[in-house]
């Protein structure tokens, strides 16, 4: 099996037939992680435990009793999910050295199905950011920076430019997970999505990024940012794989009271051939200021694709879209102020040596443990929650949230099945350019197209669409109705098939992948 293969269609069969063993898969991925260390996608690599899990999986396959499709499959997990016995840092000094005593529910579910946990991926500190550049372990590099496709286009630039400083960001905050999947070091990765943190890096790294409906997947063990918007995110190389992961993770969890009790039935995606009964909505407000002309053109082409295939494509309006990011800013900082209060050094995490008083110890611990971004959000949040500001800002934002959610309800009620929008305003920026603006400004700019889905709790997915003029991935986003992931993913899968997004051509992967290096058709969509 090649590292590029789809889980259900190819890898699972290969494992069952013994053409490849879980140990081989695991070793290949671990070797690739080592040779792609410069990407800085991983904070912790759990080599020993991974190999042990792979061995156990191999025994099961030998007995003809694999636990399911995920048995033996190497996966990675964003470092804000608790993993028993493995350091969980959230890329912060506050949790450096913190060894979780338990597994997050989603991690436990994956392990229960035999998945092999390779390691914890890098992120922005406490998942605050849109570049994966602000964690204490340093920024994550987009694997596409080292792709043949990107390098070919950069040749035209001045030769005196140092190749080292040319690399582009992954987007964030689940940048490590996106980079890990994009560079073939794992078959799937868990991210989290509060304002777009799974879909944004998915778009920049050319992978599928799924944000499930709020309440579908358990947040137990996911270190919280915004309790009313956080969801675990799924990053894979194809839509079918995302459906496999969703099937193994979704469902009520007694340990998370915000998960719905509805029965969830895992599904296999149909191979849609007829989209003529679909109604696709194009929200005009998503033509946001700053949207690159390239992406605008791709969005338009995608709409035409559906139209030519017989679907009904109509322009719709979500009038409060432009306030979504402001609303998010207030609600997010307010919830963050509350959620970060638990970090005081007493029970876990970093503790300052200050001993004068409890308060001064807390203050010193938090001073030493949090970076500027986190402290900034805590202080802003506390401001909005002050008695004199509570109605004016926090409650006001909650009211605006309802208006935003209602916008979607109205559109879906009018007969639209799926919304089609861009995921990001442009392709990935070079790191040196990205860091010119501060985290808050960047987040406000970059989350604009993804944020509203979190506000309304709707499922949304990024599908890699085409390469930009710079040779970097661009993705488009589909937003669906609550709990209608099957429809959302079916449409995404149809679209994925139409656009034939190219495979990344990385030197490191060529060396490690002894599968036949398939000759890829060039992207037919750009």
């Amino acid at each position: 099996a090649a590292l590029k293969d789809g889980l259900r269609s190819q890898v699972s069969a290969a494992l069952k037939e013994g053409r490849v063993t879980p140990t081989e898969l695991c070793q290949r991925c671990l070797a690739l992680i080592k040779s792609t260390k410069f990407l800085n996608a991983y904070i912790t690599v759990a080599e020993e435990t991974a190999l042990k899990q792979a061995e156990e999986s191999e025994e099961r396959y030998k007995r003809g009793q694999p636990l399911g499709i995920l048995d033996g499959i190497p996966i990675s997990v964003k470092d804000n999910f608790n993993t028993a016995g493995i350091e969980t840092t959230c890329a912060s000094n506050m949790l450096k050295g913190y060894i979780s005593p338990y597994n997050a529910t989603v991690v436990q579910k994956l392990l229960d199905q035999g998945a092999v946990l390779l390691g914890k991926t890098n992120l922005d500190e406490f998942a605050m950011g849109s570049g994966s550049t602000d964690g204490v372990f340093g920024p994550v590099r987009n694997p596409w920076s080292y792709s043949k496709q990107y390098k070919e286009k950069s040749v035209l630039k001045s030769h005196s430019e140092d190749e080292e400083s040319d690399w582009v960001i992954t987007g964030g905050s689940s940048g490590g997970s996106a980079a890990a999947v994009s560079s073939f070091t794992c078959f799937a990765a868990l991210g989290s999505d509060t304002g777009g943190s799974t879909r944004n890096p998915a778009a920049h790294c050319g992978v599928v990024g799924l944000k499930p409906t709020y309440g579908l997947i358990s947040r137990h063990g996911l270190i919280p940012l915004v309790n009313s918007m956080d969801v675990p995110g799924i990053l894979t190389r194809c839509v079918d794989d995302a459906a496999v992961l969703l099937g193994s993770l979704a469902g009520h969890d007694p340990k998370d009271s915000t998960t719905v009790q509805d029965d969830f039935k895992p599904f296999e995606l149909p191979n849609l051939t007829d989209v003529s009964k679909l109604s696709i909505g194009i929200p005009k407000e998503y033509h946001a200021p700053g949207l690159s002309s390239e992406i605008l053109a791709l969005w338009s082409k995608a709409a035409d694709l559906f139209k030519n295939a017989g679907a009904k494509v109509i322009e719709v309006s979500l009038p409060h879209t432009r306030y979504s990011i402001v609303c998010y800013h207030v609600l997010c900082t307010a919830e963050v102020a509350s959620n970060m209060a638990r970090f005081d050094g007493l029970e876990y995490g970093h503790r300052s040596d200050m001993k004068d008083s409890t308060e001064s110890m807390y203050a010193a611990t938090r001073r030493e443990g949090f970076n500027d971004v986190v402290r900034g959000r805590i202080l802003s949040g506390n401001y909005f929650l002050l008695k004199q500001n509570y109605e004016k800002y926090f409650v006001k934002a909650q009211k605006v949230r309802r208006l935003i959610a209602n916008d979607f309800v109205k559109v879906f009620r009018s007969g639209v099945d799926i919304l089609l929008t861009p995921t990001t305003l442009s392709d990935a920026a070079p790191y040196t350019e990205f860091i010119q603006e501060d985290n808050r400004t960047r987040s406000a700019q970059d989350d604009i197209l993804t944020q509203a889905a979190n506000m309304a709790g709707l499922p949304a997915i990024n599908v890699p669409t085409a390469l930009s003029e710079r040779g970097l991935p661009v993705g488009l986003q589909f937003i669906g109705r609550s709990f209608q992931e099957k429809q959302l993913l079916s449409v995404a899968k149809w679209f994925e098939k139409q656009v034939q997004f190219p495979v990344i051509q990385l030197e490191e992967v060529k060396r490690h992948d002894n599968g036949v290096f398939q000759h890829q058709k060039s992207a037919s969509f750009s």
Partner: protein
Amino acid sequence: QKVSVEVLDHLEHLALVDFRDLEGVERLQKAIQFADQLHEVNTDGVEPMDSVLEDRCLYLREDDVTEGNCTKELMENAREKVEEYFVAPPGNIPLPKLEERETFLPGS
């Protein structure tokens, strides 16, 4: 309007994090300015939304003990402890006043 030093001091007390430098204070100013855009929206008669799942009943379970007895594991992550107690420095001592604190804010 700029945020007064009294409010900034108050925030440092509430949040138990410090502004660190001028940039930190400016960051707050910009955040407030950004948030002020909310007031352009007419929300008359609109109820605040706490959760997207507001139409559903919160799940209640039976009052049975299903897990626990994990004192040992939980104590492992604490730096200072005695037997089964987390050890904290003396409480009921307020954070030093602005003049006595080591903080960036003017007046300290």
